[in-house]
């Protein structure tokens, strides 16, 4: 085939997409080159760059933990659970109001910081799980056989319900989250200095991700979840109670969100009724980025999103001469979502849907 024939075969939409792709790549490269070699914008030291990377990765770990809930529920129900951000919020807020503030006022927090962290985390995990199980039972299970749009709309409704429920319960002001003194300051490992709380967040989320992966791959319940994700009728024939397994999936995903909620509160030192929205949308982005339905995908997508958000603005946006680029991290994240949806809808390691539904 000659070149002209090949060119004629390309329709104008895919040509436009190719141009779009090229423009994005060129912008990123030009921005990066101008930043690194031509010294455009603020000058950063190596330590600054390491800060961007480490805070990006630890933020990414949080996205990954939350993204698991989206991806696991999508795996078993083919539904985007838009109330998942609220499971996250409910854990953080309830634990802050009922447990953390009491323990910090009594002085227990700084006497026994480790036990304090365990208690607040358990409280958050249990709250998130309870909220998730209730939502699943009341709002989603009755709609199991409804068209797929119906539970999606219901999820948005459930999300609003929980936001205003917790606002009514705890008030609408921002609540400070007490952070134990041992997590203040910096820590130096292998010559690299990290903010302590960022380091703890990254390590804790990586451990949680690995434990979850082992749970899904090795335990009987994990295998039941995978079986239900593949074929509900056949799973039933194996003697698996599908409804219970779906509830279990919600509970496990919400438990991960509960862990993320406390880590999030440690980093940002606050909790409020609206705090679930942005992390929820970001984690959904991470899940799509990695390939929705895939657990390693959610983990990778989360870490990648956190990294791009933290490093992207100072690197290529500043390099393009955009002022106050650090405020544009959300723009970076959602641009990435749009790009992924256009160019690689199955995500980084996701499988093609046609194969899965066949």
């Amino acid at each position: 085939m000659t070149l002209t024939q090949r060119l004629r075969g390309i329709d104008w939409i895919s040509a436009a997409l190719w141009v779009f792709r090229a423009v994005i790549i060129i912008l990123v490269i030009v921005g990066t080159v101008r930043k690194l070699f031509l010294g455009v914008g603020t000058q950063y030291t190596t330590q600054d760059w390491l800060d961007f990377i480490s805070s990006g990765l630890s933020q990414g770990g949080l996205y990954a933990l939350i993204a698991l809930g989206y991806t696991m529920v999508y795996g078993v129900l083919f539904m985007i659970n838009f109330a998942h951000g609220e499971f996250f919020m409910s854990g953080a807020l309830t634990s802050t109001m009922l447990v953390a503030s009491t323990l910090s006022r009594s002085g227990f927090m700084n006497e026994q910081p480790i036990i304090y962290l365990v208690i607040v985390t358990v409280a958050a995990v249990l709250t998130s799980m309870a909220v998730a199980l209730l939502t699943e039972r009341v709002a989603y299970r009755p709609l199991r056989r409804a068209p797929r749009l119906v539970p999606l709309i219901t999820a948005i409704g459930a999300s609003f319900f929980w936001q205003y429920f917790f606002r009514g319960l705890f008030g609408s002001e921002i609540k400070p989250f007490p952070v134990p003194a041992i997590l203040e300051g910096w820590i130096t490992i292998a010559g690299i200095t990290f903010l302590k709380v960022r380091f703890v967040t990254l390590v804790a989320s990586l451990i949680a991700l690995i434990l979850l992966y082992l749970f899904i791959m090795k335990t009987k319940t994990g295998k039941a979840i995978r079986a239900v994700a593949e074929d509900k009728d056949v799973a039933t024939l194996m003697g698996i109670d599908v409804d219970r397994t779906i509830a279990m999936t919600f509970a496990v995903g919400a438990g991960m969100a509960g862990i993320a909620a406390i880590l999030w509160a440690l980093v940002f030192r606050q909790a409020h009724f609206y705090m679930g929205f942005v992390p929820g949308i970001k984690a959904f982005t991470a899940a799509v980025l990695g390939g929705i339905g895939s657990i390693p995908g959610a983990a990778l997508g989360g870490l990648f999103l956190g990294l791009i958000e933290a490093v992207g603005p100072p690197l290529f946006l500043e390099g393009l001469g955009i002022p106050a680029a650090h405020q544009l991290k959300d723009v970076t994240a959602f641009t990435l979502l749009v790009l992924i949806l256009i160019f690689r809808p199955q995500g980084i390691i996701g499988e093609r849907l046609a194969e899965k539904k066949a």
Partner: protein
Amino acid sequence: MSILELNDVHAYYGKIHALKGVSLTVEKGEIVSLIGGNGAGKTTTLRTICALMRPTVGSVTFNGENLERYKPSALTAKGIAMVPEGRGVFARMTVLENLEMGAFHRKDKEIGDDIDRIYELFPRLKERRTQLAGTMSGGEQQMLAMGRAMMSRPSLLLLDEPSMGLAPVLVEAIFSTIVDINKQGTTVLLVEQNALMALNIADRGYVLQTGAIALSDSAKALQQNEMVQKVYLGIE
């Protein structure tokens, strides 16, 4: 007492009246074949027995007990196993994991021994035990689906079109395994479009037409029946 008895079962898919009063019995130790064309209601009958669908009228009794009050997931523990149409292996799980899923309700210590027994029955599965089931051939997947069903130690095994899409040599092998399984004490209800093979190994047979039993007799008598020969065996 029959191991399985369907009494005037009616079932619907939405408004479609798929089963219009199906009655059949399976005695302990038998191989019973249910033959019929496309859309006759064969798969629906099996789904109704497994409680994946509930009859709107009529009853399904297993060992004299009405299955109505059991959850579908509880039937495996009662001794009913099914190899679904199209095999239904878990494609993204390994062969070994698929076999373990068959024993999901069991808590005893003999699961490992049973897996070895399945490997003896189907040596191919042993070679492929760490392979993802979705990467295997149709025949291997059929073996896996049968092995997995046997892992629940069923007293009644339901097979939905085990010959579908398989080469004739494999069909022979699968059917001789069905006979072996039956000889070891498992009752078999076999749904087939391949009426010739199905009636060859069966003790009795039913012919299902448009949601109702059209004929029932011993397998030998059905093979001699003029209508069966003409419609299902292709003998003029």
